[in-house]
């Protein structure tokens, strides 16, 4: 009966706190949409071109033309072909009109031919080919805006290197054919298109058949759901501090019943909140994200395992909130400590940056973050279509964390009160 009364009281207090409800439900939804959109745009801008390039072809031969065709084919860039001096090109890039300018110097193709020809001749004559000491490398100049991210620059340089290698091979084959023709009098049939004997097939390594495709939504929804759930620390701790400040906690402590009853009812109400947050985030992933052009969230084929993961993560977040609310004494303390600690735990847990890409020492440290445990479980479901067997480890540690934090909260409250 006491639990029921306390539960109803907590629920009423929560439902009547409109700004608190906005923080709990609207903010995480806004956050997941904005971050998914931003991340997807970044990925799209990396993958799907639209990098403005100024292309100056002073060569006007095979290399210049072929590089242009290659860059256009890749669909990564918006190419503006122009005849400008290097100085003007530099000026335009510096002004931000173009992210990058590629300048192919005059006679570049000729220079390649001149370098390749003696090499081919040496093959037929049996002479020992040695590169001349005055060998000058062909230089293709790439001017980039200093604000352009290195990933963009590397994408372009890597594309140019690929196409240049193809063209060098083509020139080499052409000279080889000319030499053969001179020797045999027969003109060899040359295919202008390069032979692409190797094909790359990318496939995700699933243990079993699944229709899930890892994408930004499958990564973002669980990550930001965990983050939002843990942000419950702030209202929950605030609620506890408010209770202490206005004296109702004092009254409760003079009544029959234990602090555990108070914590249990808070846990039940806030579990309802975290689970509602969780459902809302899933709905956002399924209904809203596709409406704004992002991939739809696929929840896999184990809804009960997913619900179980949601409950375990919610409990861990609540346990942390109860502990913060017990340790801190003022709203300022709980606000700062709560938010900063959640941000640190989120960073360690791989919400912003994948753990596998972290330095080795950080990967070791990340084990302490409950967000990491939760995220691992969600990834099992969202990215590998895992079931109960795959998430049981994550669920166990999350629940142990919850039990430990509640135990610590009760202990610390007693110490604070009785050790005055």
């Amino acid at each position, binding site marked *: 009966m006491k639990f029921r009364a306390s539960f*109803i009281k907590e629920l009423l207090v929560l439902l009547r706190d409109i700004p608190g409800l906005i923080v709990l439900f609207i903010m995480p939804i806004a956050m997941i949409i904005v971050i998914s959109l931003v991340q997807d745009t970044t990925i799209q801008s990396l993958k799907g071109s639209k990098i403005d390039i100024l292309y100056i072809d002073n060569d006007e031969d095979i290399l210049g033309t072929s590089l242009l065709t290659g860059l256009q084919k890749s669909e990564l860039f918006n190419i503006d072909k122009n005849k400008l001096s290097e100085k003007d090109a530099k000026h335009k890039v510096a002004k931000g009109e173009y992210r990058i300018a590629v300048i192919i110097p005059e006679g570049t193709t000729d220079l390649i031919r001149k370098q390749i020809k003696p090499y081919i001749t040496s093959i037929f004559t049996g002479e020992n080919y040695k590169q001349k000491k005055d060998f000058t490398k062909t230089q293709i100049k790439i001017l980039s805006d200093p604000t352009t991210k290195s990933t963009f620059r590397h994408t372009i340089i890597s594309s140019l290197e690929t196409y240049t290698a193809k063209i060098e091979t083509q020139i080499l084959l052409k000279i080889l054919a000319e030499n053969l023709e001179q020797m045999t009098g027969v003109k060899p049939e040359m295919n202008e298109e390069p032979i692409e004997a190797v094909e790359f097939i990318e496939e995700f390594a699933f243990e079993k058949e699944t229709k899930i495709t890892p994408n930004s939504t499958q990564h973002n929804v669980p990550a930001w759901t965990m983050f939002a759930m843990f942000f419950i620390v702030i209202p929950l701790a605030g609620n506890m501090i408010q209770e202490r400040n206005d004296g*109702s906690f004092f009254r409760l402590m003079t009544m029959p019943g234990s602090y555990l009853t108070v914590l249990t009812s808070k846990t039940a109400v806030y579990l309802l909140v975290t689970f509602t947050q969780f459902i809302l985030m899933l709905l956002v992933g399924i209904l809203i994200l596709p409406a704004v052009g992002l991939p739809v969230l696929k929840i896999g084929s184990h809804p009960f395992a997913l619900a179980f993961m949601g409950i375990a993560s919610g409990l861990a977040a609540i346990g942390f909130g109860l502990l913060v609310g017990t340790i801190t004494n003022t709203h300022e303390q709980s606000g700062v400590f709560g938010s900063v600690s959640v941000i640190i735990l989120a960073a360690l847990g791989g919400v912003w940056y994948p753990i596998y890409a972290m330095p080795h020492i950080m990967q070791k440290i990340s084990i302490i973050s409950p967000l990491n445990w939760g995220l691992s479980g969600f990834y099992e479901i969202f990215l590998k279509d895992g079931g109960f067997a795959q998430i049981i480890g994550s669920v166990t540690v999350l629940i142990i964390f919850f039990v430990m934090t509640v135990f610590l909260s009760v202990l610390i409250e007693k110490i604070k009160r009785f050790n005055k």
Partner: protein
Amino acid sequence: MIKIENLTKIYKGNSEPAVNNISLSVSKGEIFGLLGTNGAGKTTTFSMLCGLFPPTTGNVFINNLSVRSHISEIKKNIGVVPQNIALYPTLTGKENLMFFGKMYGLRKNTLKERINHSMIAFGIEKHADKKIKNYSGGMKRRINLIAGILHEPDVLLLDEPAVGIDAHSRLDIMDQLKKINKMGTTIIYTSHYLEEAENLCTDIAIIDEGKIISKGKPDKLIQENNCDNLESLFFKLTDKKHID
């Protein structure tokens, strides 16, 4: 009924005791006033009486049960009215009372009946469904008091129950306390309103700097010290020109 034996409290980090070796007893049916200035040790004594934290030395017995070892049983038989408005501001008066009543283990029907009766007695029945944050100071004090008496305790502990409210509301509360006392409830209350204490209390103790400097029946103490009233007695004994 209530026995305080050599009660001392020294807060951590303090060398001076907040409550210094006080002893007194309160018989059943008394209204006992613990009077003193702010910082005299009233609230510390009050907190130890209701088991919020243990004394450094000494003990308190309520119905022969020690607060050190039987606090759970004691809590069932005491009602506590803290100095702060210990209520949830976003809940209505009725919702607050329903919650605290249920925390005392009262059944729904009994509780509803007692809430209605108390609200009528305190003249706030029309405001039962208003949120506490919209109550006046006097109304908040009344609900704060009702929350401590719903379970009809043997002992009612009140810490400055009428602080910061108008004279009319204060008189109302005092009248109600007398009625509660007549029904058999022993009352211990702390206050620095000396006139109020003189009218209400059957026995008093004056506490200053953690020590009891005088105790007994108010009339007798006033007479023995050749004073006109409790206020002049208080000033004489504490050597203070005013009370905070």
